């Protein structure tokens, strides 16, 4: 297994290199630059700003300078939008909020999604199944930018239980986490139900039943392992997305997370911040996919570390 992990880690080096290179050149070829503004500036001012950020150098030199700084010093550069902040600083500042939001949402998504999925599969074609499936379909169909304001309207404005937005006290965490969590819970519920239904029809479950195993033992000990496989595959990229923030949720609820920085950096042509967040997301996705692969081998005896 260690050899497998080591090999996969080595494979990430060229993957990251390709991602960084592609992103570096792609953002440069998009029309508009970091210093374009509605009010025109003089060529001298623009030249000075470009010189300060090293954007006056030939592109290949900027690229090699950037790679050197990232690899040798872990320095992701200086943001062009937020004049006095470095990209490392912005990520360190914003990632915790995204992790908090993501962690809570994940918890909500797993608790709600797994329970609803298992219940729906076990009570197939009953009212419980229909209820759980309806929940899942509703969650999938309602986008966060609709669900978020509805929750705010009911729980913050009419009932006054929570704040409408902000990220100051623990109450402020509940509505955004619920909004994001419900959306993922819906997906998890659908996948769990599907996975469980497939496994519950297999011979070894029938054998377990014939041997007189209790229903709870059959479900939790025997069926869940196989039934969770599709969920685990889904969770890799989903967790990366959840943990690194959501632009929509962060905007609706005014959360100082990384998701907004990621999207806005592209709009602002903040080259270094775009690259910094892309690198972070890439590392997270690669790491989580690796974890998913390892977990899948653990869950599925048919798979081997190869």
């Amino acid at each position: 297994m260690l050899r497998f992990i080591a090999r996969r880690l080595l494979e990430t080096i060229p993957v990251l290199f390709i991602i960084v290179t592609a992103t570096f050149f792609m953002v440069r070829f998009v029309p508009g630059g970091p210093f374009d503004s509605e009010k025109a500036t003089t060529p001298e001012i623009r030249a000075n700003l470009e010189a300060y950020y090293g954007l006056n150098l030939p592109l290949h030199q900027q690229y090699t300078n950037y790679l050197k700084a990232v690899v040798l010093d872990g320095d992701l550069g200086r943001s062009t939008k937020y004049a006095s902040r470095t990209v490392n600083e912005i990520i360190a500042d914003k990632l915790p909020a995204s992790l908090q939001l993501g962690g809570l949402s994940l918890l909500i998504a797993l608790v709600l999604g797994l329970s609803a999925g298992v219940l729906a599969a076990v009570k197939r074609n009953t009212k419980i199944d229909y209820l759980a499936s309806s929940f899942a379909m509703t969650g999938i169909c309602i986008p966060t930018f609709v669900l978020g304001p509805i929750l705010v309207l009911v729980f913050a404005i009419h009932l006054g239980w929570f704040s409408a937005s902000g990220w100051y006290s623990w109450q402020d965490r509940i509505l955004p986490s619920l909004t994001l969590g419900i959306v993922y819970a819906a997906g998890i519920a659908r996948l769990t139900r599907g996975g469980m239904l497939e496994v519950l029809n297999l011979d070894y479950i029938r054998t377990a039943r014939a041997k007189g195993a209790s229903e709870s033992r059959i479900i939790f000990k025997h069926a869940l392992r196989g039934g969770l496989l599709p969920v685990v595959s889904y969770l890799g990229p989903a967790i990366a997305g959840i943990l690194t923030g959501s632009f929509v949720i962060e905007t609706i609820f005014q959360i100082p997370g990384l998701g907004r920085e990621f999207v806005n950096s592209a709009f602002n042509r903040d080259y270094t911040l775009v690259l910094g967040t892309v690198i972070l997301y890439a590392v997270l996705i690669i790491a989580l996919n690796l974890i998913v692969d390892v977990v899948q081998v653990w869950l599925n005896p048919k798979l081997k570390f190869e």
Partner: protein
Amino acid sequence: MISPLRLSCLFVCFVGTLLSVTLTGCGKKSPSSASDSAPGSKILRIGNGAEPKDLDPHVVTGVGEHKIITALLEGLVTYSETGDIAPGVAERWEISEDALTYTFHLRADAKWSNGEPVTSRDFARSFQRILTPTIGSEYSYKLFHLVGAEEFNTGKLTDFSQVGVATPDDRTLRLTLKHRTPFLLESLLHYAWFPVHIPTVEKFGGLDRPGSTWTRPGNFVGNGPFVLVDWKSHQKITVTRAATYWDAANVKLDGIDFFAIESSDTEEREFRTGRLDYAYSLPLSKIETYRRDHADTYRATPYYGTYFYRLNVTKKPLDDKRVRRALALAIDRESIIKNILRDAGQTPAYHFTPVSQKFAATARLSGDLAEAKRLLAEAGYPDGKGMPAVDILFNTLDSHRTIAEAIQQMWKTRLGVNATIQNQEWKVYLDTTQTLNYQVSRAGWIGDYDDPHTFLDMWITGGGNNQTGWSNAEYDRLIRSALTQPDEAARMAVYQKLETILADELPVLPIYFYTRIYAISPKVKNWISTPLDNRAWKWVDLAD
């Protein structure tokens, strides 16, 4: 082999660890919670748009930054309680007879927040800093009225002593102008002219480069009515009353929380739940509700700005002024204001410069639809036949799209002119407009200062903000002569002529004059409305 149950436990542990690592301060209410303040203290909580780029007046360019910086720093002049120009750090000033020299006398009790006196040298060194080429200040041009300032900023002059800034003593500052600048005092209200505490800036390495950490809480030394206490990026900036401010006795508030809220929907919800005393903007969809049901909080006040379309006069068919005029006449501005903008106080624009106390253009775009059709026919496009489709470009925003669609429809039904509409993301749109790669492009302009000059000097040949390809020798001559006129009446007469040329040539189609639409709690007192929506924070009060 790990069982799924154990796996789930491990997973929950992982999430739990993650949360425990990151949930700092979650168990208790944060000390800087939005609603926290000492009992009886007057903390004004305002929505302030996007997260500020920085708080360095020589680096930033935004409106939101302006609001915060005017709380932390004060220039030579400031706003009076009624919105007029009032003494700031300068207690009085004299203007030479030729109006080319302004001598400011600084008050003795003006202090920095570290207790040091504010001197004329602080101003001179601050002006030197914003003009230093390597700072790359986008607003350095605001000081170009000073002798030698432009040359110093563009590197043609390296000796700052040759720039028109002199400090005969610690409390006297003399500014020498290269031409008459009747709006100099209005200009001085802008933060580009504000002083910074040079030793502090120097200590953090920011003297000749943008982006140093002198603007962080704990580092910032200011001379304004408030001091910087906290800056939670993308959340809020907290300032509290400065004990060292020369007019501290007149400061009414104990502090201000500037909330960085980009979404007007989010901001409006915050206002509705009482977490904000002021919402910087209201969503278009809420205007009617507020006007009807919350008249005590709804405000719509004149704003010194124009919403208009630029026309690229270098390309057919818009190189023909008859076509431009026909298109201008076919726009039903009243209908746009009534049906799209919810009639929230905007006024239709038939000339370019908004009406102000100083200036109201007499030249107007006038004519009826019959004239528009006749002009189009004369240009070779009777009933729009044979005229290539005109493309309207706008930056991606629903309200711009709705207006563009309405105008597209007006041109089609009234003139038979086909138009296409195209939205582009902000930076792409800027690039397309600045490189003249468009036909019709949406634009808006808010005055830099309260004077028609800020609107009319845009259209000088080759001017950075012209972006239409339009050039008119007479216009160039007149705009250059405006600042040499012997008196204000003569200067305003020049602007009337400029407006006449614009109304005749129409390189731009004015559509409407802006209104500032916002919500404010009835508890907020002394909130004055000014054409540029600025005010001195020291006058603002909160009722108990």
